[in-house]
């Protein structure tokens, strides 16, 4: 593709901009953007399924929370280190994605949505049921997390470490999703989104493709969940709840489903909108709902999707 270099430069530029921002932002926004970058990685994972495969899930909190609990519980109860906890979280998210993928293999449209919602609800209730170890809604904090590499010790509580670790995870997810959507696999997933029967008759096993898409999406979302836990030191049922399944949908729709940069833009806009709204009213969820309705009605392509349609057809 001719625009290949420009596209890569654009993505690297966005990441570079986020890297430079850490020296300019006041402390509150510094922390806020760090959080947004992790949540954007979650949205990027969600977008792999919604935007590039055409499957709308209402249960992605399961993957985020599987990563979160996988890391958090093993660190808290078994004294795992950060690296080991990280690994358990990622594997846990992948296992959850495998189960969801297999169960929903032959469901499409509303059925897929409902089954993912039900499975996520079951997972959420499980986190409440086992409250002796999870502490349910209240959750638990992880303190004093740090990574040691030889003599070199990184204290994850330091803002600069948080920010750059979040940026690194976002970079991996963003560039990974860019590479995926431009690969033969990514093209096949888009084909599946556009017309499943046609894709079968071009020789693609669409069931296997869907499973791969759910695994990639769940893995990315889980990676975000693990990162969130390790950087912000908290594990709780809220992150397994339905709101955290709706958020990535909203972020993705707002920014532009089926665009690589859309989830990041959507997360950024929405998180700040919620922050401003919650300063004014306790009923900030109304803002979430209103944005969702407005996005679906007037801007179905989202911010980046709209830009692509109008000005920049080359955007991936």
């Amino acid at each position, binding site marked *: 593709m001719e625009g290949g270099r420009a596209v890569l430069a654009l993505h690297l530029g966005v990441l570079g901009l986020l890297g430079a921002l850490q020296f300019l932002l006041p402390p509150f926004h510094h922390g806020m953007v760090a959080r947004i970058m992790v949540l954007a990685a979650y949205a990027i994972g969600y977008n792999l399924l919604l935007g590039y495969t055409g499957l709308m899930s209402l249960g992605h909190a399961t993957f985020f929370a599987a990563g979160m609990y996988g890391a958090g519980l093993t660190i808290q109860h078994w004294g795992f280190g950060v690296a080991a906890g990280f690994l358990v979280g990622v594997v846990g998210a992948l296992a959850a994605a495998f189960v969801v993928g297999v169960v929903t293999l032959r469901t499409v449209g509303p059925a897929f949505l409902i089954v993912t919602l039900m499975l996520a609800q079951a997972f959420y209730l499980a986190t409440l049921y086992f409250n002796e170890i999870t502490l349910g809604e209240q959750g638990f904090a992880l303190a004093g997390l740090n990574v040691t590499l030889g003599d070199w010790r990184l204290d994850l509580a330091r803002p600069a470490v948080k920010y750059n670790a979040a940026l690194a995870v976002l970079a991996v997810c963003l560039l990974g999703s860019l590479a995926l959507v431009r690969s033969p696999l990514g093209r096949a997933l888009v084909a599946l989104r556009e017309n499943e029967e046609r894709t079968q008759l071009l020789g693609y*096993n669409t069931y296997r493709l869907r499973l791969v898409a759910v695994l990639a999406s769940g893995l990315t979302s889980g990676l975000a969940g693990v990162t969130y836990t390790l950087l912000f030191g908290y594990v709780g049922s809220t992150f397994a709840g339905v709101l955290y399944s709706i958020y990535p949908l909203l972020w993705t729709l707002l920014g532009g489903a089926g665009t690589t940069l859309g989830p990041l833009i959507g997360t950024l806009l929405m998180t700040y909108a919620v922050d401003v709204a919650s300063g004014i009213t306790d009923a900030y969820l109304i803002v979430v709902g209103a944005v969702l309705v407005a996005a679906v009605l007037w801007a179905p392509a989202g911010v980046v999707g709209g830009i692509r349609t109008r000005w920049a057809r080359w955007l991936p």
Partner: protein
Amino acid sequence: MAAVTPILETRAIVKRFGGLEAVSGVDFRLARGEVRALIGPNGAGKTTLVGLISGRLSPTAGRVLFAGRDVTGLGPWDRVGIGIVYTFQITSVYRRLSVRDNVLLAAQRRHLRRLADWVMLDRQRLTHEVDAALESVGLADLADRPAAVLAYGHQRLLEIAMALALEPALLILDEPTQGLAMGEIDALCRLVRNIAERATVLLIEHNIAVVLELAGRITVMDHGRVIAEGAPREIETHPEVQRAYLGRRSRSTP
């Protein structure tokens, strides 16, 4: 007759939809390299039969053999992999993708053998293959347009370009001339004759002129059964065929 393995064979194949038996125990054989037309009145079961062959539908009973191998249990994707390629009766291109990307999806499939291929393929070789397929159907100039803006006749040609990029051993064309203008039909006939040099062709067609021009043999279906089979001359005078066609005139019979 010499025991040459046919490229395709169905044995007592049956497809029921609820109470309707669309295909009733059809034994169908296709020799390698031939161009066969499948004709019959609307609702005769032609599209259902090729659906069973391509794997879009699974049979209620009976078997499908391809080059002597039982493929009844294979999914449509695996059948494409061994060379059974189907082009849709109602054009089914990816409307929002470019013409080039439509063909690219077909062309890349054959090269996806190892896991690493799904990540990266030789871009140049693929582009070359896509260009060749577009060239052969005369769509090279429209390569970068979205498929949705193509005229109907061009969308049909795109379908065929996608099929060609899959390098079929058996190409099933489901009413390829439907909705085409006269000049386009001539071009399509030339194209099919070209394809027939490399592949076996099974053609569902209502346009009898096209059938007589292209097909070496003709199979006639009615009410889910094969009622006649033979060279065009034999079919024209076959009493069963006359009855089937005189009873219910087919759309494009001249």
